[in-house]
Each structure stands twice: as structure tokens, then as C-alpha cells.
């Protein structure tokens, strides 16, 4: 009975979404794939990097001083045109890490896992840990060129910390260091935004020269901001993992 009701509910929601997308009147219509007039949308301007009205074509490796010098257009939206939203996202993650920290605070020790880590896990973790950290750092340094960026980069670093937790019974992150990195990176992000007000006129405005599209050192503040986000997310998620893998010392 319960299952039939749930299937009916899902079907009803599906019909609702489908009809809202395809059968409404002309102004709200959700066009079929490929039939959208992109000139009506603001996203076209973000892709062409032409919000301020420049009409030149953007060519990878050649265009210089584009409006937003990031070759990855997702990054150019997330950290350049809509950087304020990203600041909000970082704040949401901070608040959730704060909640975990408030609930799981006090003097804590490592929880005993069911099975002690064996030889293969220990040695394998030693090899893979370095590669994972380097991959995470690569992810957020190259966030403006290749897919990826600060959030996945930081999460990969946190996953490597999780690997260390699993492979070593005694290992713990230095929570004070994680907190220091997190708060420094978070405040530096806001300071970069305030520097934008001072130097360019708007909060989080890109005030550095954007360079050639597709080079590592290009696109102004984007790599700096992504590095800060990566460090912040990595340290935050590491402290969350520490909270989950430790238990309170009684008495």
C-alpha cells in the first residue's frame, strides 16, 4: 500500500514538472534542446565574455586581457561574474562545519575501528596519500583552465585525510591548525572582495590583469580565490571527518 501511494506521488510530481516545462504558455515555455535563442539569455554573454560589450571572439591561448580570463567558462561564472554566490556557498559550508564542531566538541580520542588497519592498507595509503594531495592541489590551481576548482579540490584533500584516518589508528588532524587555515582563507576571500571595492569599484571585482586565456598565471584573482576556497574547504571537511571518527573521553 505504502509503495503504491509513493509511486503515485512520484508520478504526480513527474507529470507536474513535465507539464510545467512543456505545456505552459509561450512566455514561460521551456524550449526543447537546441531550440533556445541564446541571444535572449544572459548566459550567452557570460560564455562570450561580453558583458561589458566587447565583440571580439575568444580564442584559447591567444586572446589577451579578456573580460574574464578564465578558459573554463563554469569557473568564469562561478568565481568571476557570480563570485558573491560562491561566498555564500562557502558560508553555508562554514556554518555546517560549525554545527558539527558545536555538537561534537570537548576532549576527544580516536574511535576504535572494528578491524585494525592491515599491512597492505598502511603501505598503500602511504603511496596514494601524496598523489591524492598533489591531485587536489592541481585541481584548485588549474580550476580556471580545466574542469574542477576549489570545492572538488578541497574535497579530494579531505578524502586523502580520511585515508590517513583509516590507515592509522592513532592519526589525528591538528584541529587548531585546521581552524587557523580555515579562518585565514575565509577572511582573505572577503579581503580580496574588499580590495575589489577599493581598486575597481565593486565587491569581488577582478582587479588584476587577466592575461592570456588558457595560461596558468592568468585571469586575475580567479586562481587566488580558488586556492583560498580549496584550502578552506579542505580544512573544514577534514575537521568534520575528525569529528565523526573520534569519540568523547568519558569523565
Amino acid at each position, binding site marked *: 500500500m505504502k509503495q503504491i501511494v509513493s509511486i503515485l506521488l512520484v508520478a504526480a510530481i513527474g507529470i507536474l514538472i513535465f507539464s510545467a516545462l512543456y505545456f505552459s504558455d509561450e512566455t514561460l515555455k521551456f524550449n526543447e534542446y537546441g531550440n533556445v535563442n541564446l541571444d535572449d539569455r544572459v548566459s550567452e554573454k557570460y560564455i562570450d565574455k561580453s558583458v561589458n560589450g566587447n565583440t571580439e571572439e575568444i580564442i584559447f591561448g591567444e586572446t589577451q586581457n579578456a573580460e574574464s580570463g578564465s578558459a573554463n567558462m563554469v569557473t568564469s561564472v562561478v568565481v568571476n561574474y557570480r563570485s558573491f554566490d560562491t561566498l555564500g556557498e562557502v558560508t553555508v559550508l562554514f556554518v555546517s562545519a560549525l554545527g558539527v564542531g558545536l555538537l561534537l566538541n570537548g576532549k576527544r580520542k580516536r574511535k576504535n575501528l572494528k578491524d585494525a588497519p592491515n599491512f597492505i592498507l598502511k603501505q598503500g595509503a602511504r603511496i596514494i596519500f601524496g598523489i591524492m594531495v598533489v591531485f587536489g592541489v592541481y585541481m584548485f590551481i588549474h580550476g580556471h583552465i580545466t574542469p*574542477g*576548482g576549489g570545492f572538488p579540490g578541497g574535497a579530494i584533500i579531505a*578524502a586523502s585525510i580520511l585515508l590517513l584516518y583509516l590507515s592509522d589508528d592513532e592519526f589525528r588532524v591538528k584541529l587548531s591548525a585546521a581552524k587557523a587555515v580555515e579562518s585565514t582563507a575565509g577572511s582573505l576571500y572577503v579581503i580580496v572582495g574588499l580590495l575589489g571595492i577599493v581598486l575597481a569599484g565593486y565587491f569581488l571585482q577582478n582587479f588584476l590583469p587577466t592575461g592570456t586565456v588558457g595560461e596558468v598565471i592568468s585571469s586575475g584573482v580567479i586562481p587566488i580565490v580558488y586556492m583560498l576556497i580549496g584550502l578552506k574547504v579542505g580544512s573544514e571537511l577534514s575537521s568534520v571527518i575528525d569529528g565523526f571518527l573520534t569519540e568523547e573521553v568519558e569523565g
Partner: protein
Amino acid sequence: MTVLDIISIVAGSLMVVLGVLALNAKKLFNTVIYLSMMSMLAVVCFVIMRAPDVAITEAVIGSGLVTALFVFTLFAGKKAGGKA
């Protein structure tokens, strides 16, 4: 119908199946593993839909960290005397 279409249809329908399995699993641990498999298939779908940024994030967070945190929470609940 191209190969990519077939892959996305298979991955999408498997996601639905895994979602139902996760809802109906007897043990909570199996639910967590089914959800992890579902995120892995979501990664395949995101790559086919040309959204590699989302795919990377989903792979790391959806099927990596969240699964680990769920598993540890389940173990903690078991230790405290709950059913798991």
C-alpha cells in the same frame, strides 16, 4: 540512437532501480552502498551531459565523503545500541 544515448538510458534506469532498492533495503548499511552506487552512475550521466565540473564534485563528495560519513555514523549508532 548513438552509443552515448544507450549508455545514458541504461545508467538512468539503473539509477531508478538502485533508488528503489535503497528505499526497500532491509539493512541501513545496504542503503548507504546503494546510494553510493547511484552517485557513481550519476557521474556517468553528468559526463555524458558534458558537465565535467559537476561530475568531479559528485564523484568526490557524493560517492566518496558522504558514503564514508554515513558508514561511520551507522557504526556509531550501532555502538550506542540502535538498530543498524
